[in-house]
Every structure is written in structure tokens, then in C-alpha cells.
């Protein structure tokens, strides 16, 4: 049984994470040189579109990657490098120290076990408790997730729950052993708007109560605005900007971030064209040369098409992968667009 050592502030530290997958055409680079960390109790938002690699980053942390994937770099969690752990050790981390919630609850829940059994199983895998004790804790978890009649519903099966309720069950499972880190991969994307609001509320209250760190993965920046302390933007397998949530919306440093922020329609923008980013996200395996965003960037220079762009730190501690970030006054443009 592996227990992480959590002296020091950084709960999770990812360094130089690189991921390649084999295809018939050879290796495709999925993630390249990803570096970031999460503090204890911090909510880090990870935003990106299709092909950004955000979901695979989460799977890499949980060591749930396909067998033929080639991973390099290090994922440090409480002093242990998760990439180097044996299967057995990793299993004791998963669920107990790190919990995960996925996008499609119906596919993640066991179809022929009752909901109560599924939560109990997780508890009993990691702690030595009796069946009865585990069951009552399961019912408690369901109650915590605001599921009415938890004692009865624990005896029901996944298909008897609506989408929003299923997601609450998922969270009950993920939080049952009080993990220090919760990875939520698009947990509300498949849900209706009003249900989404409910789930977000639960996540927020759980986070405050337990001082749990959350890695919240989504394509919807709006969701991160009120939840995350810092936001990390990924594009085509690379980290392209990392900043505090309070700053990034008013003052993005990367043209892609600015594009994402502006293209989400928000009030006060009636009439006229919506700002958009031309082109499409690149298909993996056919990445552009130089800066991966250059074909879509209106500020691209010749040098952007040729040179691989490194990550730079700004004097005020922000991270961005763009050689023109200091000259472009992107924040000003947002002010103009919104007014």
C-alpha cells in the first residue's frame, strides 16, 4: 500500500511529459513537453479543444494509457513518480489518493451492479472495513451528493438514474476514499444546462469542504471562470499558456487563448459578427512546422512558421508559448470587443 508523502506544497508535479502513440504511419506525438503542477487544495483548469491532448494528460496521470503508448517524463505525486510505479502500487493510489470522474457516466458505471455495491467496492479495495460499514458509507456518500432517498437508491442500478444523477454517483465513487486530488474530465459536458449548474455546485462545495485539489478538464472556458484558480491552455499536445484565472480573461498572452475567450458568445455582443479563429485544429500526425498554431494565427510572422517555439516565463510569473506575447496587446483588444 503506497502512501504519498505530502510535505511541501506541490501536490502534483508534471515535468517534460511526452506521449507518443503508434499508428500504421508510425509514431504520432500526442503530448510534447508538458510541464505544470497543482498545489494542495488548488483547482487547476485545463482547457483545450479536440486534439489538444487534455484527456490523455489525465489518463497519463492515472496511468490508464493504452499499453503500446510511449511515455517519458515524470509525474510526481507526493514524492512518488507515478510513471515508475508498479501496477499494484498504482492501483492503490488510484481511487484512494486520486479520484477520477469521466464525461459519460453511463459508460463508466457498471451496468449490473447496484450503485451501492460500486461505491462499496471502491471503499473496500482501499480500506479494511466490513461490508456493512462500507455500505453505510456508500449511502452516506450518496446523501452527500444530494441524492434523495439515498438508502433506497443505493440498491438501484445505474440505468435507473438520470444523467445528472449518474454523474453524482460517479462523484460519490471518486470521493469515497477522500482523495487528495480529483481529476474531472469534462464532467458536465454531456449534461443539460440546469443539471450542469447543480453538478458544478456540488463540485465546488466538495472542494471547499475537503480542501481537495481538482484538475478540471474542459473545453468550456466559462465553466472555469468561477471555479479555477489557475487555468492551463493546451493546443495540439502542447502547453501554450498558464495563468491565474483572474488575469487570463482580461489579459491573455497567447493569440489562441484570446481567440477562445472572444469566440464564446457572451452578453453584450448582440449583432455583428462573432469573433472566430480561422481554420481548424490540426490533426495529430499532421502538425504544422514551427508554431503549431501559426496557420490560424493572425499575428504569425515568417519566423513562427519555422522555429519551434519554446515556453517562456514572464516577469510576473506567467507562462506562455509565443514569441510575440510581449508585443501584442491582446488584453486591449478584448476590451474593445466587449465594450
Amino acid at each position, binding site marked *: 500500500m503506497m502512501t504519498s508523502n505530502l510535505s511541501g506544497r506541490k501536490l502534483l508535479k508534471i515535468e517534460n511529459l511526452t506521449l507518443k502513440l503508434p499508428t500504421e504511419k508510425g509514431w504520432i506525438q500526442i503530448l510534447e513537453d508538458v510541464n505544470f503542477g497543482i498545489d494542495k487544495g488548488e483547482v487547476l483548469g485545463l482547457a483545450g479543444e479536440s486534439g489538444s491532448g487534455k484527456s490523455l494528460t489525465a489518463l497519463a496521470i492515472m496511468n490508464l494509457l493504452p499499453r503500446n503508448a510511449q511515455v517519458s517524463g515524470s509525474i510526481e505525486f507526493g514524492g512518488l513518480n507515478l510513471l515508475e510505479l508498479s501496477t499494484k502500487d498504482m492501483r492503490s493510489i488510484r481511487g484512494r489518493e486520486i479520484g477520477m470522474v469521466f464525461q459519460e457516466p453511463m459508460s463508466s458505471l457498471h451496468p449490473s451492479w447496484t450503485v451501492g455495491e460500486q461505491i462499496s467496492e471502491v471503499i473496500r479495495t482501499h480500506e479494511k472495513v466490513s461490508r456493512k460499514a462500507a455500505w453505510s458509507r456508500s449511502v452516506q456518500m450518496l446523501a452527500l451528493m444530494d441524492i434523495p432517498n439515498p438508502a433506497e437508491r443505493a440498491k438501484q442500478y445505474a440505468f435507473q438514474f438520470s444523467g445528472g444523477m449518474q454523474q453524482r454517483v460517479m462523484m460519490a465513487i471518486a470521493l469515497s476514499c477522500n482523495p487528495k486530488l480529483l481529476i474531472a474530465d469534462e464532467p458536465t459536458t454531456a449534461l*443539460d444546462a*440546469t443539471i450542469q449548474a447543480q453538478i458544478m455546485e456540488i463540485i465546488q462545495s466538495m472542494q471547499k469542504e475537503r480542501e481537495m485539489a481538482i484538475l478540471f478538464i474542459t*473545453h468550456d472556458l466559462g465553466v472555469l471562470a468561477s471555479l479555477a484558480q489557475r487555468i492551463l491552455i493546451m493546443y495540439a499536445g502542447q502547453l501554450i499558456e498558464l495563468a491565474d484565472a483572474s488575469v487570463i480573461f482580461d489579459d491573455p498572452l497567447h493569440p489562441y487563448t484570446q481567440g477562445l475567450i472572444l469566440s*464564446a458568445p457572451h452578453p453584450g455582443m448582440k449583432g455583428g459578427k462573432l469573433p472566430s479563429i480561422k481554420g481548424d485544429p490540426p490533426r495529430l500526425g499532421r502538425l504544422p512546422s514551427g508554431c503549431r498554431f501559426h496557420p490560424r494565427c493572425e499575428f504569425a510572422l515568417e519566423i513562427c512558421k519555422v522555429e519551434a517555439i519554446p515556453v517562456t516565463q514572464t516577469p510576473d510569473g506567467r507562462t506562455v508559448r509565443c514569441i510575440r506575447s510581449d508585443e501584442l496587446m491582446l488584453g486591449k483588444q478584448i476590451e474593445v470587443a466587449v465594450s
Partner: protein
Amino acid sequence: MEVTDSGLREPAMQLKNVRKEFYSRKSNAIRGVDVAVAVDDVSLEIYPGESLGLVGESGSGKSTVGRLMLRLLEPTNGQIYLSGNDITKLNRRKMRRLRGQVQAVFQDISGSLNPKITIGKLLAEPLEFHSTLNKSQREIRVRELIELVGLSVHHLARYPYELSGGQRQRVSIARALATQPKVLVLDEPVSALDVSTQSQVVNLLQELQERLKVACLFIAHDLFIVHHVCNRIAVMYLGSIIEIGSAEQVYSSPRHPYTQALISAIPHPNPTIELNRKRIVLEGEIPTPTNIPSGCRFHTRCPYVMDICKTVEPTLKEYEDGGRVACHLHIEGPKLGGKSVDSLRDSLAK
């Protein structure tokens, strides 16, 4: 009919008291049928050149309304008028001939485009059946269409799987416009696209709609986009329209508690505004269409529920600005004790 300065305007498409039921075997009994009322007594009009947004969550019936308009589904009750003619009475052959006037763009999850056929042929297909153009004339028109949606003739020889999601949606839009339809039904046209591509396609739709003066029904769950693009918005809940009005009014000063909650549920991308605005989080799950609550169908989740709401279904009340809302708080107004329209207005702290 709408009264304008120039007199009465005829709607391009009109639904009158349309009802659609679906039947399925009872899940908890051996015999018997469950009746799901997907659309319950819906009446609405779309005028030429306008864009009507239809929003709602699962079970609202908005997609069903779209399919009824396209007559891909038959209404259980009610009439559907296209330019004044009742199309529910038409047989299949006559209906098929009319389809050129009512076209659709769907959400492209699994693929609306046959992967075995080239884009060029796909674009020509509607023209084959709804126009009298010969082959070379069709080819010319196809070229016009592909450029209309911002792609190049280069793409005509490609197959759908060679295009990106955004490009495929553009092709679907071009196809829908090929026959110069009077009415265009768009069912979640951008929901399956990446955020950065969504606005491209939304811009395209807006421009085309203005240019070609097509009447559009824009079905979506994203109120922000709908507000940006549409002239009017109708909000559906469990098969019924509970509020309808100008896009500006419905969005900035929604009258129905459900509409308020819906708007509140969409997170605002600006964190300062988001953290400061009033959040309305509804309790409970969305009922299923087989078990529609009595009285006002929203009463089980309504934060302002009163006794009358549980027994009597509210009818649409019209305001001076043309907006209509189905809610007892508005019908009875301040006459009822306790919560009233005034308290509703107070909660709009935007």
C-alpha cells in the same frame, strides 16, 4: 399573423396546436403502454426572413418540433402550415415535392454525409430531385454553393471524411440551401463542433440568413449563441412553450422562472461578472415526458411555486412588447399572495 407597418404578414411556417405522442412498452409492468408526450399543444409561427431560436433541455421536445416541421414525424394532433397550406394532409409524394422548400441542417455527430459519395455529388443531390436543371447546369450551381459557404471548388472532389467537422457542417448548410428553401430547420448545427469553429459557422449562418432571407428555426441548447443569432427566442420545457419573445427581451429580462434559471446556469466567461451575479440552481431532476407534472409542468422545480401552479396549467399571457409567458405569477400577478411578478423582477440582478 403579425401586424407590421405594412399590414399583415403571412408566416412562412406555422404550427397550430401540434401534439406528438410516442408510445413504448411500460418499463415496470408486463402489459400496457407508456405514452410520452414529446410535444404538447404547441403553436408557433416563423416569418419570412426571421430567425426563431428554440431552446430547451432534454425532454423539452425542441428536436421533435424540428422533425415535425420537416414532416419526418407525423403529428398526433394539430396542423402544420407551409406558406398557408396544411402539409399534414399531403400524401408522401406531394410532400416530397414540397421538401425543396423546407430543408434542414442537423448536428453532425455520426455523419449526415454519406462517406462513399463525393462532396460534389452530395451537393448536386437535392438539385436532382427538386429542380429542372440538367447535369451541366447542376454543376454550375454546385460550384456556386460551395463558394457560398466559404469552401473552394477544390473540395468538391473530396470525400466527407477528408474534411474537418466545421467544413462538413458548411457542406451540410450548402446542401440545405441548394433548393433555395423558404424555411431552414437547424437542429443543433454547431453543438458538435470545437468552440473555435462554432463561431465561424455561426457567422456563416447569420450572414446567409440575412442575405438569402430564409426563415430559420434555430434549435439549440446554448442560449448565448441563440441570442446572438436570432430575432426571437422560444423556450420549451417538457413539450410546451413556456416563454417566447424577442431575443433581447427573453435574454436580458426573462419572465419565466425556468428561463431565468436556464440563463443563470450558463457560466459567464468573465469571472468577475460570474462571481457577482445571482445564481439560480434548480432542485431536482428534469421529469421525463412520460410523467409530466400536473398543472404547470415546471412546478416541481420552480422556486416560486404556489398552490395554483400544482393544479392549473397556465396559458400564454401576452405583454405589450409581444412577449408571451406561461406562468401564474404573470397571469394572476400581484393579486396572489406571497411571491409575485415584482419579486421575479427583483431577482434579475444582471
